[in-house]
């Protein structure tokens, strides 16, 4: 999917920013620890997520990367017996402040999951879901516009424009995942969290999603958890390496992969464990 195909949508006309400008942190985590019942899953994580960049969280299974991701839009609230300490702030407001409303927060921090999970509804209704519950469209025309632009930005429009009324579950795996991305961006979140979005997909579908992530970076801050170091290297500007619940190393992707400062990182990226 190339940019020119989307050239008629306004966002494509925005000038591409140069890659490594002076960065402003979009979200800041300080001393973030997570407990499941008595078990501590995350230890004092400090991290700055940079606006309009892709941050990859890597590490071996069970290292706490997904746990941290789910802290960023408080999806852990749903889990029984889970508690979070420390602060995660977004644009200078602590998202764990009791005054903060999760519903509002999640409208600003969207999420895409490991397995594509389209609702058992039509493609149109899947994308319209967010705007509908948040009351973002005043009428059908507005909703149509939102759905179309979201699908276009998820590079799915051309494939589904003739069958918007068909169930979203009928699409292929890669299409389903792009539908989920379209669903997430339909509410114009500021940050999109992606939890191993390609782990259930074949290489071709994966490549398309990665391409899409690259495009979305222009407008959204993206945090992606991935198992694949190659993927992290391909799509991200910043990479954070987690190990046993600790944030071991965090920095420019290129630096981290070529010249890691911690030997655990070294060990992981050279394949000695993981």
């Amino acid at each position, binding site marked *: 999917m190339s940019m020119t195909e989307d050239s008629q949508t306004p966002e494509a006309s925005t000038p591409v920013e140069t890659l490594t400008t002076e960065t402003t942190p979009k979200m800041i985590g300080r001393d973030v620890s997570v407990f499941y019942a008595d078990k501590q899953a995350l230890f004092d994580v400090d991290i700055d997520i940079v606006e309009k960049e892709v941050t990859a969280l890597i590490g071996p299974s069970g290292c706490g990367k997904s746990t941290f991701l789910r802290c960023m839009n408080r999806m852990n609230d749903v889990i029984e017996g889970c508690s979070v300490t420390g602060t995660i702030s977004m644009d200078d407001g602590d998202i764990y402040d009791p005054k903060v409303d999760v519903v509002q927060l999640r409208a600003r921090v969207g999420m895409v999951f490991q397995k594509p999970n389209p609702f058992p509804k039509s493609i149109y209704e899947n994308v319209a879901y967010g705007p509908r519950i948040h009351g973002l469209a005043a009428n059908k025309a507005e909703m149509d516009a939102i759905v179309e632009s979201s699908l276009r930005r998820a590079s799915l429009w051309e494939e589904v424009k003739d069958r918007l009324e068909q169930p979203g579950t009928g699409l292929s795996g890669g299409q389903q995942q792009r539908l989920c991305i379209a669903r997430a961006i339909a509410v114009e979140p500021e940050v999109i969290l992606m939890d191993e979005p390609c782990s259930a997909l074949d290489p071709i579908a994966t490549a398309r999603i990665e391409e899409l992530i690259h495009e979305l970076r222009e*407008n959204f801050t993206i945090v992606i958890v991935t198992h694949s170091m190659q993927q992290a290297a391909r799509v991200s500007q910043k990479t954070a390496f987690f190990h046993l619940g600790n944030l071991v190393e965090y920095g420019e992707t290129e630096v981290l992969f070529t010249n890691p400062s911690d030997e655990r990182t070294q060990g992981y990226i050279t394949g000695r464990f993981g």
Partner: protein
Amino acid sequence: MTDATVPNDPAAPVRDAEGIAAAVQKSLKKRYARETRFKLYGVAAIGFALAVLVLLFFTIISNGYTAFVQTKVQLPIDLAQSEIDPDGSGDPEVIGKANYRSLVFNAMRGEFPSVSGRTNRRALTGLLSSGADFELREAVLADPSLIGGVRQVWLTMSDDADVFIKGRSTDVDLADGRGRVSLFDESGVVTVTSGEDDFAQALTDVKDALAEQAVRAENEAARRQGSIALFTAALNENPSEEKAAELREDLERTRAEIIDFEARAADLRDRAAAAGGEEAMDSSMPSYFAVVNGGVVKATSVSANSLTGEVILPLDSLDPAAAGDWRVLSLETPEESRRVKDNQAVWLWTLQQEGKVETKFNTTFFTAGDSREPEQAGIWGAAVGSFWTLLVTLLLSFPIGVMAAVYLEEFAPKNRWTDLVEVNINNLAAVPSIVFGLLGLAMFLNVFGLPRSAPLVGGMVLTLMTLPTIIIASRAALKSVPPSIREAALGMGASRLQAMTHHVLPLALPGMLTGTIIGMAQALGETAPLLMIGMVAFIVDIPGGMTDPATVLPVQIFLWADAPERAFVERTSAAIMVLLGFLILMNLTAVLLRKKFETRW
């Protein structure tokens, strides 16, 4: 952020971060209100279900707990040697043939020597259970040493007396007299005049009743107005001469009646409205009595400070009585709407005051079979019937259920036939139970000629009904045994059947038992199919085996629930308590069994 908004396009969505945040913010209040409301519906639904549960238990228990006691009367019975065993033979045959009925009746009459006249004496002995003489006979037969002297014997009272003593027939109120009363007897009609307005409440009750009667009379009059309209309309349609005469006559009569009713209504209304005065009482009003000088006077007319009426229990004297030395007894329910009449109530009340009437633990209820008389009816017959029926069910359904489950789960090839069997089992689990009754009637009774009303047939029908439950539970239990155990046994050279019986079955047994107990509980509470095969007959005897006519607990409940006697209501409720007790016990056993043997592989 992308700048997607084309400012001139009215259909353009809100596309900037602030706009979206504001829109979300704006929607929040409404959404959270909806959330709360939704959650409230859930709580309300659960609350409703639980409230009904509580109401149900409350109804059953509050209606039923009194059935566990039975009203008995202590009578001094003259068990003279000459009456019972004149020859002193001690032969049970002779002793059993004595006229206990007259002994009991005489003892009862002895308590109230003043009662005279056939009707009254009948009413008096009617307070005893019709089985009281058998009770005495059994007592004497059990202990012949009672013969030869006057013995104090506790005898069962009739259901009406029982209901009255338990306070379920009418509220009984007793008030101390506040004024000094003087008594005046005029040829058997006694007037009790108090210095205070001791009978004001009675007078109020009477006036309330009068007002009600007035309303009824007015309604009658209004109804006849309707008839008049009909007659008039008929007359206007030019009927034949003969018919017209008839109609005119009807019209005339009805008009007279209306005048009559209206006059009565007006009179009643005036009397009800007037303050004070003296009013006559009848059986549609609450009953009032003056208890004075060791006797009881029933009010037939009252004023605020005097009561006139007939003597029910004779007074010792007509001397004036001081305040506090006499009392006003009242029965709130009018005489015409209760089974215990005023004189019977007074007798019962007197016996109760003397400590001769008491409620004692109701052994009959737990040891007797069914009876037409509530005070002689018990659940033992039905309980034994339930036992036999369940025994048959268990003996048939457990082995068959387990064998079927073992085959389907472990040995059956996956083909059309086993699919059919499976669909069948699932369907049978949802077939209405009454259909199984029809099957039992048509097959077991009519084709095979098995006996009606027998626990054997009942058990067979219930077996067919509970089999699906047991099979499904047993299969689940077998499924939960990990294949590794089978493989281990097979690897040792055991045949599949050996692996099954030696290893898998013992591990699955607790689960199978749990399912069986739950199936048995279902069978214990089942009624409808048993009605079809005649287990609904009135059976007094305790069944002694699987082919004797019998009934079961739920059917007994059904039969009693239909009985008109008030005393059966509490017995029905009590039988339900017993049945629920058994069911809870069985389910608890199942839960404990599951907890104890629950293994996570």
